[in-house]
């Protein structure tokens, strides 16, 4: 997730063009980070030390990690940590930028420092963001105090990442009392909590998410797309309700059949969270609410 968010920041601050960013994302799909890139990004080695190890590796039949350890630059446990990070999406993203010559590692780290200062984040916050772990990243972009609502939102985003696009990210959320949307799929639940989950957007976005979830051959028109999005919400609420019922607190949630509207709809309520969800070049609004009276008109 943070690879997308920081990627947008690099374009907004003119460090990369949109086209360069797209080419980095394309390369990212098939790469794992080199240990040297990770070591510098994680501030375990300097660029000079990595260059030295790379030069030695070119003439020795030894692994980067082994040379770095024998040169006194890394400990064995640090090499293990670097190996675990090789699939990390932020690090493959960084590697893509460097490999394509768009920015150096120093420039990237310097831009990340600027991002950190601008947002008022600590070093620990940046580490959380770079982990690209949805559970650790999401709280920085959504202000949700209710634990059940946060868990429901996390379940939704995790499911999008698992079933639709693992590069999903979000734009900052708003608290709203009213949302007007061209189309919407939604579901209400009752029981220990009154829950509303809706996906709102234009035709193109809803078609895209439906196709990504169900498969292109099953989505012929907008009605199919709204039905598929409603079913996706049903799956997410089911996952949340199942986990909640099995937890120590044994929260019971009963789901009503999901619904959709294929005309302009107003969603009205108090303390609704509207969270723009971005995936595969499209954006939908996730509308979530817990224990609040929501009306769909």
């Amino acid at each position, binding site marked *: 997730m943070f690879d997308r968010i920081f990627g947008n920041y690099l374009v907004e601050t003119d460090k990369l063009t949109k086209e360069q960013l797209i080419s980095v994302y394309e390369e990212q799909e098939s790469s794992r980070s080199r240990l040297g890139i990770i070591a510098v990004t994680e501030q375990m080695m300097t660029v000079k030390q990595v260059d030295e190890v790379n030069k030695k590796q070119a003439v020795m039949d030894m692994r980067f990690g082994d040379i770095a350890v024998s040169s006194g630059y890394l400990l064995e446990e640090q090499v293990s940590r670097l190996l675990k990070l090789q699939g990390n999406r932020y690090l493959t993203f960084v590697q893509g930028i460097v490999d394509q010559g768009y920015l150096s590692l120093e420039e990237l780290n310097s831009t990340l420092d600027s991002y950190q200062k601008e947002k008022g984040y600590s070093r620990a916050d940046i580490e959380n963001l770079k982990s690209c772990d949805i559970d650790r990243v999401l709280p920085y972009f959504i202000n949700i105090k209710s634990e059940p609502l946060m868990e429901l939102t996390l379940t939704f985003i995790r499911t999008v990442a698992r079933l639709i696009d693992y590069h999903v990210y979000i734009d900052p959320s708003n608290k709203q009392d009213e949302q007007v949307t061209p189309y919407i799929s939604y579901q209400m639940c009752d029981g220990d909590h009154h829950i509303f989950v809706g996906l709102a957007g234009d035709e193109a976005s809803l078609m895209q998410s439906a196709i990504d979830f169900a498969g292109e051959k099953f989505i012929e028109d907008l009605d199919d797309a709204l*039905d598929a999005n409603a079913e996706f919400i049903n799956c997410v609420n089911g*996952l949340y309700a199942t986990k909640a019922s099995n937890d120590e607190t044994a929260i019971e949630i009963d789901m009503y059949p999901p619904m959709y509207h294929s005309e302009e709809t107003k969603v009205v309520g108090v303390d609704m969270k509207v969270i723009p969800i971005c995936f595969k070049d499209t954006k939908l609004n996730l509308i979530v609410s817990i224990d609040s009276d929501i009306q769909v008109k």
Partner: protein
Amino acid sequence: MANIYIVDDSRTSRKVLANILKEAGHTVCGQAENGKIALDNYKDCNPDLITLDITMPVMDGLEALASIRSLDKDVKILMVTAAGQKGKVVDAVKNGATEFITKPFEEEKILEAVDKCLNEV
């Protein structure tokens, strides 16, 4: 290979499930969008197995399950639902479901559950 009747209010779910079952060599002999329609019509195609969602309008899957089971001890019934809460599983088993699996669909798990249902004595 079996005759299978699909019950789910989601058109998408019915299409996806039907596709999985047909590609595995089964025949989808009918479909219904709620428990009432299923109860009124499933006998027409004499299915070996019914897949039954729980969260549906008009008549939900648990009510449909109890009604079908009271009339038919032999048909296999596979609950295929997003509502995987402990209470629902217990109710389904109590009312005579043969097997219970949760959405989102995983093709391998569905076919495994279908085979298990069909092979149950």
